[in-house]
């Protein structure tokens, strides 16, 4: 019997070096996101959760790689496709699912839902459902750090569609002009909802756009979590060293539809199939197995543990309490106000 393996793992034939352990940890993190999102889709189909739902399946390497380069005191600003970012930043899966259930136990007491996850403990500032709307916030968080003499990084995630918005250009200019510690993470999944990058932007080289603001920027294979992690560490180190904002274009792909209402008329199945061959979990798992850093027992244990975590999260959300309707007007102002 393979037996239960702890998170760090001590048994088995695979390489037990710290480096191998770290790589397995990245695999586990991506698996956690994958399984959480699969649960979300199931629960949505069962009408347990409602609203718009945008899942991150296929893009896990981006959040996993970047989050591993951040420190607890850093801040994160994300988009409406942010379940994975919240989870890997440290928001418990149960609090995320309970939020989608609209329960008191949700990370925003049911006020935010899928697109608006927030968590003060992990400095997770959303969950922003206005494309590019989070960039100015990230610039401001970084400005506060600079003015206060704190050495912290604000990581800001947004899609390639944001690069068509004015707020993208205004924010990059401001961050560069004021030398602010922002890590801009452009998740280029090629489609702004259903509009292909080449159909919506005259310049499709996104790193080049950032470079035009004098921001160190480079394009990264967003399906390779090790590449992402390495790039994010380099960028974060540069930012902490005082060299101002950095920009990563993370080339990735969304395997599922934009949302639960998307019939996917804008891309063909062959394209999706080509990208799924580069599934970030598959890539890393294959690499680890072929290099003796992951054995079958490791993988089975990892799956079992993650499945258990998500099952417990669903149980937690199911068991949660709906916020009573008489609490409707809370949190509009910090102190009660009669409008």
């Amino acid at each position, binding site marked *: 019997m393979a037996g239960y393996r702890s998170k760090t793992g001590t048994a088995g034939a695979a390489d037990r070096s710290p480096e191998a352990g770290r790589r397995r940890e990245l695999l586990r993190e991506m698996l956690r996101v994958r399984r959480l999102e699969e649960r979300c889709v199931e629960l949505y189909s069962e009408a347990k959760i409602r609203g718009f739902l945008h899942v991150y399946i296929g893009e896990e390497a981006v959040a996993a790689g970047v989050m591993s380069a951040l420190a607890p005191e850093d801040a994160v600003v994300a988009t409406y496709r942010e379940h994975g970012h919240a989870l890997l930043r440290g928001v418990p899966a149960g609090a995320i699912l309970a939020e989608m259930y609209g329960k008191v136990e949700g990370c*925003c007491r049911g006020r935010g839902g899928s697109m608006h996850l927030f968590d003060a403990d992990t400095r997770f500032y959303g969950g922003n459902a206005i494309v590019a709307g989070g960039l*100015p916030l990230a610039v401001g968080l970084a400005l506060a750090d600079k003015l*206060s003499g704190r050495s912290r990084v604000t990581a800001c995630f947004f899609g390639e569609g944001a690069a068509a918005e004015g707020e993208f250009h205004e924010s990059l200019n401001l961050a560069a002009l004021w030398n602010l510690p922002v890590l801009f993470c452009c998740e280029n999944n090629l489609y702004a909802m259903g509009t292909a990058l080449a159909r919506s932007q005259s310049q499709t080289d996104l790193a080049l756009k950032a470079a035009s603001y004098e921001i160190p920027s480079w394009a990264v294979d967003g399906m390779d979590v090790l590449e992402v992690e390495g790039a994010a560490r380099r960028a974060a180190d540069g930012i902490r060293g005082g060299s101002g904002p950095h920009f990563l274009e993370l080339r990735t792909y969304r395997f599922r539809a934009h949302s639960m209402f998307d019939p996917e008329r804008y891309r063909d199945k062959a394209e999706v199939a080509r990208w799924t061959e580069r599934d970030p979990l598959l890539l890393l798992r294959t690499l680890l197995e072929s290099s003796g850093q992951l054995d079958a027992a490791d993988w089975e244990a990892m799956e079992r543990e993650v499945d258990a975590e998500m099952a417990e999260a669903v149980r937690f959300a199911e068991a949660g309490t709906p916020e009573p309707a008489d609490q409707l007007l809370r949190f509009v*102002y910090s102190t009660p106000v009669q409008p």
Partner: protein
Amino acid sequence: MKTTYREAIRAALREALINDERVFLMGEDVGAYGGCFAVSLGLFEEFGPERIRDTPLSESAFVGAGIGAALGGMRPIVEIMTVNFSLLALDQIVNNAATLLHMSGGQFNVPIVIRTTTGAGRQLGAQHSHSLEGWFAHIPGLRILAPATLEDARGMLPTALQDPDPVLIFEHGSLYNAAGELDDDAGAVEIGHAAVRRAGTDVSLITYGGTLPVTLEAAATLAEEDIDAEVLDLRTLRPLDEAAVLATVAKTHRAVVVDEGWRSGSLSAEVSARITESAFYDLDAPVLRVCSAEVPVPYAKQLELEALPSAARIAIAARQVVGARG
């Protein structure tokens, strides 16, 4: 001491910068230029470019950066040159500043103060003259202030800075040169209540901000005709001091609402509706409104004046509701 509305705001800014190192001022030409309307003149030299921060012409980014800085523990004061330019930052004000506390289930409050110039009367044409504060007063999560006096110009800012939530201060451009006496020890004022600027018994003239002077002028004219008007300055447009509105109507039984915004869908409509909902049986006459003509504010002086609420039009409306005396 003798001072002006502009100098009173500057004194409030200066005090805030001295008292709280988390405070900084940010906006277009607030620094080296001295402020488009010279409100921040001299502060750049005194406090330096880190705290009197000139921004690019990027309203959305610098307002959003103010929100982010507030989330990060600062107390930013963001100046938007005119209310028309605030439209370029509506996303940040409405979708972020006003919503983050709620969407986060109470975890993240946004202690930002946004100052902007509003209103007409200076022949600046349609893109520098509108009164859009009524729009912002529509938005839950925001607090909307309209200082009309030297005391409020001096005192609303420090109170706004103590507020844990976003506060927008609308400074009427025609008031900057208003001069008068201000107590040497003038300081923070409360922002929760409307103020009776002239007590009266025959009709309530309810207004705020830039139209307070013309409303008081109308009241003086009416007094010569033996019509004793009460003038209520709303001061805070959101949340509205509904109790003060209802109290003055209960006293005079007649109301004229004066608002430089356009009449349709305006703040004056809201005030009138509150009176109808809660003081209908106190009324001896229908509520009337004096608002701006429903045109983009024109450049030519005679046209602009014709478009705006005037003391004469306010007095006519007041006579009309008083004439409805049974």
